[in-house]
């Protein structure tokens, strides 16, 4: 069907676009006609609608990302641009192994249909990893929900429960260990939850597959194969949905935009894909492999071909459609889950189809599923422009120079600083019982135990898990069991900091993720980010985005690679999610979320964060700072955003990380925990309690020297980044030497003691003495209540 874009006035064009459920702007629709030199078909308009959505085109963000983020370093095998990034892991017995990193958001779908939204969020990102030729070895979920005690509290908790259910449903069934992530509750997410997901893959460097038609296609005929679930209506318009304000009324209509997950089929597909990759290698057949996400068949085929600088021709009538009458625009662009696109030499097509359809019996696994040859690669002759052609039987539904489809569009967005002015008043802690404040913080939704949540996730399937969620600041896997090498991974992002200071919100996310990885002996190797912001067309919002990206970039350069001086910590992949705000106009607080992966040279260095032995020394690596801006203490206890966020000092942080890594290597450190939300006292309490709050060893520390300079509140609860380190009694002198060698600021706080209590001197007034039993009870009681149906905290 031709849409007469060229001759329609604004009102009828607008109506025509609405009729097709497209979110293209009028000018964009006319630009399509201009590019094609004629009126477009409805399928072409739908295709451009997906390709030009913010979700696919990064039209608002690309220039900013390119400008600020360092993406190159010696350990990067593949930077941003394809489905996922790849970094070096280790060489073992002559084989080079690499890690694949991807980060995705599924915010709007999860707000509308939390179970399906969260499940398909995992489904989407793991496909990105699989299609690099990798095995998926972990996922993590950074989650942001509304305030449980707020006006929308019941709904927020319902969403939290259902998101958790969706993650468990999909991840557990697919057999991928969940290594954690984090959970934040805040009123700014009342109408717009954030469900991000990180996936980690493992691949031999010589088995990496690219998402493009290989060079070999110029020397022999290549086919385009579609594999997986039968294409249906589901997820129609998903890309546009992710790129618009989340208006709740419209959200109900948008339920059709949320895809339907099928982890059962995906599990068999993963087995079949692995066999397919082996078959291709055995036949010396270079292939292109890409998953279907937003924009469906049209997007995957055009991007595969364009990346290989060739054309492609598809016939939709050859595809497995759930219903034969599916309109072409739906068949071409729907976001049906569990599908992959392949460009393979025609000589292996039959073998490959047999593998999927008979050996792994996809049609028997899921009705209508299977692998079909639906097109072929068109190699342009010299001087000819590669074309994208899609037909259905005799009818041409898309015909365009391929670059017009994939080049996308760019917008220069305006940016204006609208960060709220900071109150200069310092927080007053005189007369407060800081011990009671600690108990209250541990019982708050922010610091309470996440155990009730993690126990719904399988964190040990695949038999590689060394440290589970909650046992330490980062999850750790032995990716190649039998070899000593480990992978540490942590996700972080503190919206309170980002609200007070959007630039430091980005920087601190990188720093905290890197610190967490170092806590278990991991050398930070790379990061992947997910940038969750409001409407980029609002200059004040766009400003926070630019500031956050700048912060991430500066932190990556400031920290750098510990094992390659002068090189930045590279950003190898990421995702941008805009329009996170309700139709009422309230944007979420800026939420840059960063995942850092670290390489652990020997998993024997990985220790849990729990205190190990009475008599051991307790040290703090990192300067105290008087600022409480953006801290949980200020927000939770005082309901205030007071003041500045403590600024990071990259040289100091590098020195602290180097000290921790060496102290773990030399077996001086036996437990390490980073100081973040809740400050030094919360960190100390967490070390004493351990992952299940069963810890029996206490601590006796003196904070007087710091309370004197930073103030009692900041000494106890300030969030200036640091490490708390338990050092073997016999190793304290060696540890202090190590810190001095690296130039790290190192303070001896006190000792681990046999009495099960936190004993803190020097905060003014009588010493704090808080029994561990009390802290344990406070910390364990909240999450089960939050997750229990119909019960509010």
């Amino acid at each position, binding site marked *: 069907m031709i849409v007469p874009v060229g001759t329609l006035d604004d009102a009828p064009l607008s109506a025509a676009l609405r009729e097709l459920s497209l979110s293209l702007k009028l000018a964009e629709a006319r630009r399509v006609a201009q590019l094609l030199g004629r009126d477009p078909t409805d399928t072409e308009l739908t295709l451009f609608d997906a390709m030009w959505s913010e979700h696919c085109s990064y039209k608002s963000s690309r220039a900013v990302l390119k400008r600020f983020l360092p993406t190159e370093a010696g350990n990067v095998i593949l930077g941003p641009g394809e489905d996922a990034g790849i970094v070096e892991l280790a060489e073992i017995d002559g084989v080079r192994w690499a890690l694949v990193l991807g980060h995705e958001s599924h915010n709007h779908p999860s707000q509308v249909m939390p179970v399906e939204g969260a499940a398909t969020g995992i489904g989407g990102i793991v496909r990105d990893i699989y299609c690099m030729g990798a095995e998926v070895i972990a996922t993590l979920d950074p989650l942001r929900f509304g305030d449980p005690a707020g006006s929308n509290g019941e709904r927020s908790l319902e969403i939290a429960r259902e998101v958790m259910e969706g993650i468990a449903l999909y991840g557990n069934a697919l057999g991928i260990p969940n290594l954690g992530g984090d959970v934040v509750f805040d009123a700014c997410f009342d109408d717009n939850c954030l469900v991000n997901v990180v996936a980690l893959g493992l691949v031999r460097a010589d088995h990496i597959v690219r998402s493009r038609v290989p060079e070999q296609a110029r020397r022999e005929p290549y086919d385009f194969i579609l594999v997986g679930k039968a294409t249906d209506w589901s997820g129609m318009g998903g890309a546009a949905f992710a790129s618009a304000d989340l208006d709740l009324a419209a959200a109900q209509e948008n339920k059709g935009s949320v895809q339907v997950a099928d982890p059962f089929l995906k599990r068999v597909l993963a087995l079949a894909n692995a066999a397919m990759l082996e078959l291709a290698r055995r036949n010396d057949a270079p292939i292109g492999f890409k998953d279907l996400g937003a924009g469906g068949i049209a997007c995957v085929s055009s991007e595969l071909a364009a990346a290989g600088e060739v054309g492609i021709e598809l016939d939709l009538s050859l595809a497995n459609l759930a219903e034969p009458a599916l309109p072409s625009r739906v068949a071409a662009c729907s976001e049906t889950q569990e599908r992959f696109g392949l460009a393979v030499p025609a000589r292996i097509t039959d073998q490959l189809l047999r593998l999927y359809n008979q050996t792994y019996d996809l049609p028997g696994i899921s009705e209508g599923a299977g692998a079909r040859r639906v097109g072929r690669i068109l190699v342009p002759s010299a001087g000819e422009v590669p074309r994208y052609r899609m037909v259905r039987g005799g009818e041409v539904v898309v015909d365009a120079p391929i670059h017009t489809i994939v080049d996308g569009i760019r917008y220069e967005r305006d940016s204006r600083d609208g960060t709220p002015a900071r109150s200069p008043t310092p927080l007053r802690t005189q007369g407060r019982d800081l011990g009671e404040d600690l108990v209250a913080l541990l019982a708050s939704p922010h610091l309470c135990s996440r155990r009730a949540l993690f126990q719904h996730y399988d964190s040990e*399937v695949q*038999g*590689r*898990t060394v440290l589970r969620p909650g046992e330490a600041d980062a999850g750790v896997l032995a990716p190649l069991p039998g070899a000593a090498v480990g992978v540490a991974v942590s996700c972080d992002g503190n919206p309170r900091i980002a609200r007070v200071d959007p630039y430091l919100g980005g920087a601190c996310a990188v720093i905290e993720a890197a610190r967490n990885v170092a806590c278990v002996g991991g050398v930070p190797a790379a990061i992947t980010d997910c940038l969750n912001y409001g409407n980029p067309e609002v200059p004040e919002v766009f400003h926070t985005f630019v500031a956050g990206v700048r912060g991430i970039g500066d932190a990556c350069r400031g920290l750098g690679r510990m094992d390659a001086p002068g090189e930045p910590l590279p950003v190898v992949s990421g995702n941008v999610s805009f329009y996170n705000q309700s139709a009422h106009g309230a944007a979420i607080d800026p939420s840059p979320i960063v995942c850092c992966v670290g390489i652990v040279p020997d998993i024997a260095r990985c220790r849990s964060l729990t205190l190990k032995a009475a008599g051991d020394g307790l040290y703090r690596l990192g300067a105290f700072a008087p600022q409480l801006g953006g801290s949980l203490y200020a927000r939770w206890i005082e309901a205030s955003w007071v003041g500045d966020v403590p600024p990071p000092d990259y040289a100091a942080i590098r020195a602290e990380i180097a000290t921790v890594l060496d102290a773990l290597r030399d077996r001086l450190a036996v437990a390490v925990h980073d100081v973040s939300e809740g400050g030094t006292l919360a960190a100390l309490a967490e070390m004493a309690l351990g992952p299940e709050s069963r810890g029996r060893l206490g601590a006796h520390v003196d904070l007087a020297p710091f309370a004197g300079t930073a103030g009692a509140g900041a000494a106890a609860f300030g969030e200036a980044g640091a490490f708390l380190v338990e050092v073997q009694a016999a190793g304290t002198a060696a540890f202090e030497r190590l810190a001095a060698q690296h130039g790290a600021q190192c303070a001896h706080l006190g000792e681990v003691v046999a009495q099960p209590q936190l004993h803190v001197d020097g905060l003014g007034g009588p010493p704090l003495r808080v029994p561990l039993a009390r802290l344990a009870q406070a910390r364990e009681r909240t999450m089960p209540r939050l997750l229990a149906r119909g019960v509010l905290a």
Partner: protein
Amino acid sequence: MTRVRIGVLQFPGLNCETETLRALGWAGVDGELVRWNEPATRLATYAGYVIPGGFSYQDRVRAGAIAAKSPLMDELARQAERGKPVLGLCNGAQILVEAGLAPATAAGHVDAALARNNIAGWEGYHARWVFVRAPTGARCFFTEGLAEPLPMPVAHGEGRFLFGDPAVDREIERRGLRALVYCTPDGEEAAAFPDNPNGSTHALAGLAGLDGQVLAFMPHPERAARLWHVPEDLPGPWGERRRRAASDFAALSADGPGMRLLRAFARLGARGGS
């Protein structure tokens, strides 16, 4: 010397094949995958069988119910009756129970079920480390001598052994088919959560079948196959062993608690069954 070959059944939706094969290798036998649509006759060549964990056929109807009806399982039953050892782990255990191979008080009779976890009024999937041991009087070939508490993880939604008929209860007791029970870190049989993680009848974690050559076991020994698998903060002697090995990769690479069971299975396979 050729190694003993073990058939590892792969039904669609299972997802613990890889680590199960790896752990069998550590136990000194060679596991080989047998895909769901391969000819069942292939099974006859193996010395023993493992059905790994996962979600076969998406847990449709009941966990394990569909796989239990497959031609592979008919052949497996024939091989088991000839005395070859069969170990079902998690979903594999559910499949064995649904197939009537455990407890198998009468041939082909399904007289047990694995019901939804019941944890203090709450139902559903639950993952945690637990302790198991063989109770006195157990006559399962896999679990002889496993009297000390062994820690390993459970991760399932339907792990509560149930018997409809009290006669079956008595028969299980009489024949010593109660192979492994959940216990406290000190070894006391665990009736209640959290040491009994799902409310299982008689604290059952592993139910034997036939003459003791079949074991339907809900926990995951393959995830406790190395000392480094054991959580550092776990109470009891295994936790202590884990803490002593910290900082030493060679020590951490020693057998974990799950290998006690897997090695017993491998030995049984090597002897050609009972």
